C-alpha cells in the first residue's frame, strides 16, 4: 500500500494543529510553516500524479481486508482523476499561502487564519482521496466549516451576512447529502463506493434510484453552486479575504462539488439518461444565466464570482454531454472527448480564476475599494498586476493562445460531434459575452483615467503576492500545452479512462 495517500491528508492536519500549538511562542511561525507544508504537498501530489499513471492505488485504512468480498474498513483511492484534483488543490493552495504572507498582515488573529487554511486543504484532500461515502461527508464538513469561518474572517457586516447565508444553505446541503447516504445504506447496506456500484448494477427500483440521485445531486449541487442553488456563492466568494476567494472559486467548489458529483455519478451510480439530461440542462442554465448576471456587476469580486458559476456551467455541460452519450450507448470516443474537455476546463479555470481573484485582491490591497467605478489608470502604477490580469481575462474569455481557448474549443467540438448544436452555439455566445464583460473590467480598472488625483502613492504590491500572480500567469500559458495529444494522453487520458470505465471500476477496487 502506498504510504503517500494517508500522508497527503495527515500532513496538513498536523500542520494546522502544530502551528496553533507553537504559534503561541513563535509569532511568525504559522505563515512560513504553512507555505512550506503546502510546498511539500505540491511535490507529493505531483509525485503521485506522475507515479500513478493509468493505474489505481488503494489504501485500506487500518489494514482491514474485505470479508466475503465486502469491504469493512474505509478505503482511500488514488487514481488519475483524483491525482489531477490533488495537483490543482496543492498548486492553488501553495500560491495562495505565499500570497497570504503579505496580504493577511492587515488582519488580526493570523494564526487562526493559517490553521483554518490548512484544515480546509486537509478536508479537500480527504474528500478527493476518499473511496467511502460517509468519509466523503466527514471531510467535506471539515473543509466546509473552515470555509464558513474564513468567509467571516474580516468580521465586518458584509462578511458576517455572507457567512450566515453560506452556513444556512451549506447546512441544508449537508442534511440532504446525509439523507442520501442514509437511503443508500438502507438499500445496499454498505458505504464503500465500489461496493455500492456493484449493488446498484444488480438492479434497483426506479423511483428509489431517481430520488437518491436527486438528493445527492441537490446536496452537492448546493456546495458547487450549480444554477438554482447558486444564491450563496457571489456573497461568500466576494466577502472572503482574496486568497481565500481564490481558493474557494478556484479549488473549493470543484473539490467538494463538481469532483464529487462527477465521481459519484460515473463511478457509483449507473448512469441513466434522465439524470444525464438534467445535469446537462443545469450546466447550460448555469453557464448562460451566470454570465448575464455577471455583466451588470460593478463590484470586481462579485463579477468574478458570477463568472465562476458560468465557467462551472461549461464543465458540467461537457461532462453531462458525455453522460448522455454513454447512457444512450452512442459513440464512446465523442463522450471521452467531451469529458476530456470538461476536465481540461476544470484545470484551466483553477488557474485563471485563482489569478483573477489574486489580482482583485492586489487592487483592493492598494486602493481599499472593490468598486470598478472608483478605479482607473492602474496599468501604469501596477504593471505586473495589470499584465497578469490581462492574461487571465483573455484566458477566461477563450482567446488563443491561452489555455481557456483550447478547453472551450474541445467542449464545442465535442458538442458539435454529438450533434448538440444548440449547446455548441450557446457555449460560443457565452464565451463572447464573457469577453465583453472582461473588456469592461480591464477598461475600468486599468486603462480608464483615474477618477481623482489622490492616488499618487499607489504602487505595485509586495513580492510574495507578485510571485503568486506571475506563476499563475505563466501557468495560463503552459496549461495550453495540455491540448497537445501526447501530453493530453499522459495526463488527462487516465482520468477520463477511470470515469469512462463504468463497468469494471467497482470490481477492480473490490478485487484489490
Amino acid at each position, binding site marked *: 500500500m502506498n504510504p503517500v495517500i*494517508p500522508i497527503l491528508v*495527515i500532513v496538513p492536519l*498536523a500542520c494546522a*494543529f502544530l502551528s496553533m500549538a507553537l504559534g*503561541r511562542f513563535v509569532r511568525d511561525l504559522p505563515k512560513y510553516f504553512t507555505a512550506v507544508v503546502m510546498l511539500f504537498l505540491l511535490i507529493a501530489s505531483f509525485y503521485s500524479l506522475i507515479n500513478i499513471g493509468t493505474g489505481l492505488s488503494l489504501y*485500506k485504512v*487500518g*489494514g482491514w481486508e474485505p470479508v466475503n468480498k465486502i469491504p469493512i474498513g474505509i478505503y482511500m483511492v488514488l487514481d488519475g482523476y483524483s491525482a489531477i484534483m490533488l495537483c490543482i488543490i496543492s498548486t492553488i493552495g501553495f500560491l495562495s499561502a505565499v500570497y497570504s504572507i503579505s496580504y493577511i498582515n492587515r488582519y488580526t488573529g493570523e494564526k487562526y487564519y493559517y490553521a483554518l487554511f490548512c484544515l480546509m486543504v486537509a478536508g479537500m484532500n480527504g474528500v478527493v482521496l476518499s473511496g467511502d461515502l460517509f468519509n466523503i461527508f466527514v471531510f467535506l464538513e471539515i473543509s466546509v466549516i473552515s470555509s464558513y469561518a474564513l468567509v467571516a474572517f474580516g468580521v465586518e457586516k458584509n462578511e458576517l451576512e455572507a457567512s450566515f447565508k453560506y452556513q444556512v444553505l451549506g447546512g441544508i446541503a449537508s442534511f440532504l447529502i446525509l439523507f442520501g447516504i442514509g437511503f443508500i445504506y438502507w438499500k445496499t447496506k454498505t458505504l464503500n463506493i465500489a461496493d455500492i456500484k456493484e449493488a446498484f448494477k444488480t438492479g434497483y427500483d426506479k423511483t428509489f434510484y431517481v430520488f437518491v440521485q436527486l438528493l445527492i445531486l441537490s446536496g452537492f449541487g448546493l456546495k458547487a453552486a450549480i444554477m438554482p442553488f447558486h444564491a450563496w456563492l457571489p456573497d461568500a466568494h466576494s466577502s472572503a479575504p482574496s486568497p481565500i476567494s481564490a481558493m474557494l472559486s478556484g479549488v473549493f467548489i470543484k473539490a467538494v462539488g463538481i469532483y464529487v458529483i462527477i465521481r459519484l455519478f460515473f463511478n457509483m451510480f449507473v448512469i441513466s439518461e434522465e439524470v444525464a439530461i438534467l445535469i446537462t440542462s443545469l450546466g447550460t442554465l448555469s453557464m448562460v444565466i451566470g454570465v448575464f448576471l455577471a455583466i451588470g456587476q460593478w463590484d470586481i469580486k462579485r463579477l468574478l464570482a458570477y463568472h465562476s458559476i458560468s465557467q462551472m456551467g461549461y464543465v458540467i455541460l461537457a461532462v453531462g454531454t458525455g453522460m448522455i452519450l454513454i447512457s444512450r450507448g452512442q459513440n464512446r470516443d465523442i463522450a471521452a472527448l467531451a469529458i476530456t474537455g470538461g476536465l481540461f476546463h476544470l484545470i484551466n479555470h483553477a488557474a485563471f480564476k485563482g489569478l483573477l481573484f489574486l489580482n482583485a485582491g492586489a487592487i483592493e490591497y492598494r486602493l481599499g475599494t472593490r468598486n470598478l467605478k472608483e478605479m482607473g489608470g492602474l496599468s501604469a502604477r501596477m504593471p505586473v498586476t495589470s499584465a497578469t490580469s490581462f492574461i487571465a481575462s483573455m484566458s477566461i474569455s477563450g482567446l488563443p493562445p491561452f489555455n481557456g481557448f483550447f478547453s472551450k474549443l474541445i467542449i464545442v467540438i465535442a458538442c458539435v460531434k454529438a450533434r448538440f448544436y444548440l449547446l455548441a452555439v450557446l457555449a460560443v455566445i457565452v464565451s463572447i459575452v464573457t469577453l465583453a464583460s472582461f473588456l469592461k473590467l480591464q477598461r475600468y480598472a486599468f486603462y480608464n483615467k483615474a477618477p481623482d488625483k489622490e492616488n499618487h502613492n499607489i504602487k505595485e504590491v509586495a513580492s510574495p503576492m507578485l510571485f503568486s500572480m506571475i506563476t499563475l500567469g505563466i501557468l495560463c500559458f503552459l496549461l495550453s500545452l495540455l491540448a497537445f495529444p501526447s501530453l493530453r494522453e499522459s495526463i488527462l487520458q487516465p482520468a477520463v479512462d477511470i470515469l469512462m470505465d463504468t463497468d469494471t471500476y467497482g470490481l477492480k477496487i473490490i478485487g484489490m
Partner: protein
Amino acid sequence: MTVIVKKTTQIVAGMIFLYGAYVVIHGHLTPGGGFAGGVIMAGAFILVTLAFGSDFLNLKKEEAGSTATENISILMVILLSVIGLFIGAKIFFLNFLPKGTVGELVSAGVLPLYNIFVGIEVTSSIFIIFLALVIYKEEEST
C-alpha cells in the same frame, strides 16, 4: 449566585466530572466512549463557570489553557494513528497494541487510549466554545 448554589455546584460538578471520566475509561466495555464522556466532563466545567461567574475565574487564562490542552490531545490522536505507519505492517490507523480478553478494562489495544485523548479533546473544545461566547459578551459590554 448564592452560597447554596455555589456549594451544591462544587459537589455536583465533581461527581459529574467523575462520571464523565468513568464513561471515557470504560468506553470499550459499556455504552459511551470518548465523545459521550467528553461532553459530560465539559458539562461539569460549564456548570462551574455558570455558578461562579467570571469574577471568580480568570476566563482568558482558562481559555488559553484549554486551547493548549485541545491542541495537544488532538496531536496525540494523530500521533496514535500515525504510529502504525512506522511499526510492523506499516498501516495507517493500525491497532498495534495486544487486544487482550474481551470485557476486561485493559483490553482492545489502542481503543482506550483513543477514548481518553478524544475525551480530553472534546471536553476542552466544548468548554472553549462556551468560554468564547461568555468572554465575547463581557468584552462587548465594556
